[in-house]
């Protein structure tokens, strides 16, 4: 708890600096990531983040110590080479893009590991810092690092905001972008540069192995809350910053704990919560809507069957007869009978279930929609009368009063469906 207060009061300038750094890099990663995610290239970010490792190691070899300028330069170069390699191999061979991404990712990472272990063998004391580039260590950020990574992240953010409209167009409609005269190729090059830069800014705090998560997961979570790019961007940024700070705090509070994995844990938690509980697209609300719809279908069918008995002047149905009509759904049917009774749509008289006047109106509506749709299919689509029932069976639950009015008008207020059954109206008996 003391740690918690100490960390979040930012009284320690080092803590404030770490938080500032991780906030900036989370923002830039989430923003770039949102565009790559929507462009369906999420895994490219994974490849680049693995591919910066050889660059980091080479920078160590040249500079002989942990120097942020060299590291950023080295990481940037191998990251850029890897994106170019992916593009070149996909273009010049018959290999599929995901195979190419996997191959480039693993080969670059292999080269990185080869250099990394070679550096370890030489046993340089300054190498203790090199380890941090694998899984990240936000706490090891010093002022000089913040200047380099922070300014780079800021640059990425500003570039994305300046070219927001262009990037949006290229992702959603590249053909149109080309036709209105945008320099698509150059903009794509710029975007790839920003992507590599965003990865590079994250390597010290998050690490090369898990940097991809900060690009992929925030937009994946944000996508479930909105269909609008601006809101998705904003949410992705918020999610990324929250998890970035959470990861930094944990590696501050627990000694020797790498930052990267905890950032990933936090962002994954937000993502899974979004997948399940998000407003319209979450699993839970989808499941709820589906259940509601199925219940409505069942209720409509129940009312319809009662109406049809009445229409044929057959003997009224008892509870047992109705249960028989819907085999395998006895439990739901019973529940609906009591529910409809409570709503005053049906009543039970001497063991027979009958529609009340309100129930009759509702039942008529369902039957009317069914028959109107059958007639519509027969007249406008020239379907044979024996082909229209199944489709109408679905549409009867979906037609709104507005559509009903239109349908009625275009069919000229018909009285009979294609099977010569009467189309029931409210004022009929």
């Amino acid at each position, binding site marked *: 708890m003391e740690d918690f207060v100490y960390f979040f009061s930012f009284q320690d300038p080092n803590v404030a600096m770490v938080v500032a750094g991780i906030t900036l890099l989370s923002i830039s990663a989430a923003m770039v990531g949102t565009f790559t995610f929507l462009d369906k290239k999420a895994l490219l970010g994974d490849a680049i983040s693995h591919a910066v490792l050889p660059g980091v190691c080479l920078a160590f070899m040249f500079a002989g110590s942990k120097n942020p300028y060299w590291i950023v330069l080295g990481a940037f170069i191998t990251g850029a080479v890897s994106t170019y390699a992916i593009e070149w191999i996909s273009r010049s061979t018959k290999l599929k893009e995901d*195979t190419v*991404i996997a191959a480039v*990712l693993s*080969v670059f990472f292999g080269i990185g590991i080869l250099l990394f272990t070679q550096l370890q063998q030489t046993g340089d004391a300054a190498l203790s810092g090199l380890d941090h580039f694998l899984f990240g260590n936000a706490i090891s950020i010093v002022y000089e690092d913040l200047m380099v990574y922070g300014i780079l992240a800021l640059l990425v953010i500003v570039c994305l905001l300046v070219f927001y409209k262009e990037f949006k167009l290229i992702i959603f409609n590249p053909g149109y972008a080309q036709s209105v005269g945008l320099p698509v190729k150059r903009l794509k090059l710029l975007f790839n540069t920003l992507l590599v830069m965003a990865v590079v800014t994250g390597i010290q705090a998050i690490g090369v192995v898990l940097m991809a998560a900060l690009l992929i997961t925030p937009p994946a979570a944000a996508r479930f809350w909105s269909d609008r790019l601006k809101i998705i961007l904003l949410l992705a940024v918020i999610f990324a910053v929250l998890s970035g700070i959470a990861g930094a705090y944990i590696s501050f509070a627990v000694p020797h704990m*790498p930052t990267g994995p905890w950032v*990933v844990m936090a962002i994954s938690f937000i993502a899974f919560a979004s997948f399940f509980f998000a407003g319209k697209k979450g*699993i839970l609300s989808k499941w709820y809507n589906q259940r509601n719809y199925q219940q409505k279908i069942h209720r409509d069918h129940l009312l319809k069957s009662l109406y049809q008995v009445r229409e044929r002047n057959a003997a009224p149905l008892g509870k047992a007869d109705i249960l028989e009509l819907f085999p395998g759904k006895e439990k739901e049917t019973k529940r609906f009978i009591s529910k409809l009774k409570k709503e005053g749509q049906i009543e039970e008289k001497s063991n027979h279930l009958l529609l009340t006047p309100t129930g009759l109106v509702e039942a008529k509506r369902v039957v009317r929609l069914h028959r109107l749709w059958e007639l519509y299919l027969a007249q406008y689509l020239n379907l044979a009368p024996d082909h229209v029932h199944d489709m109408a069976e679905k549409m009867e639950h979906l037609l709104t009063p507005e559509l009903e009015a239109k349908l009625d008008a275009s069919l000229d207020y018909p009285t009979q469906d294609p099977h010569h059954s009467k189309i029931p109206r409210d004022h009929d008996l």
Partner: protein
Amino acid sequence: MTFDPNAFLIILTGTLIAISCGLLGSFLILRNMAMIGDAISHAVLPGIVLAFFFSGQREGIAIIIGAGLLGILATIIIDYLSTKVKLQNDASIGVTFTWLFAIGIILITVFAGQIDLDQDCVLYGEIAYIPLDLIVTENNTILGPRVLWIAVINVILVLLYVGFMYKELKLTSFDKQFAQTIGFSTGFINLSLMGMVSYTTVSSFEAVGAILVLALLVVPPATAYILTKKLKPMLLLTILIGFLTSLVGYYLAYFIDGSIAGAMASVSGLFLLAAILYVTIQKRSIGKGIIMPAELKR
């Protein structure tokens, strides 16, 4: 050059691992599932760590089961996210494996000191120590390096699997609809392949680590795929490239004093590069060889 038994053992183990990975990887890339291989190789980590922690031993069936379960779980989560949750496929893969891998790394850090596993081992394995880690029976007979035996068992099982399922794998890889129509259970074949990939990843884990296994899964088959058009030559070529990767990789690592697994991945990349250049140059010379009829030129 004199015969170095240690080098021989390491190259042999590396070759066996490269063959197991390459054979399964061939089918992965034919099914456009290379990144699923990436996901599985990351995702087995928590399974390995937990099984290691609870069984208390490095070898043994517990780790293989633990990791195998995690590998299959990862494919199920990815499938669930992309079909039920309707998250786009690449993001489903990315979200799932980074999450599972992060859990694995956290577990390793938490259990540090209690288990003999560290982050380095996860990243690039310890193939160089193979000759030191021997199986010794009760009456002191030395049966050879433990990791070599694991690799031998793995390669035998992979060969049996590919041998028995060859027709099924081939058909479901090239024409899934047709395979389904004639009554193959594509779901089961897919899951069995994922299971084999998980098992091979774990079995190779000690030697090459969780991430570099991907290089052996994807790169030699991709190289072979560029060079040939038929499945059988592709598999044979994959085996040959696997052997060469192990051989050259060992000497490269020896020469610059680095990780052998890293060197193998680098060398496999070189072979891929050579194959791409070869094909590109060949294409160009074929292009030049065509003599355009005069009337078409105009």
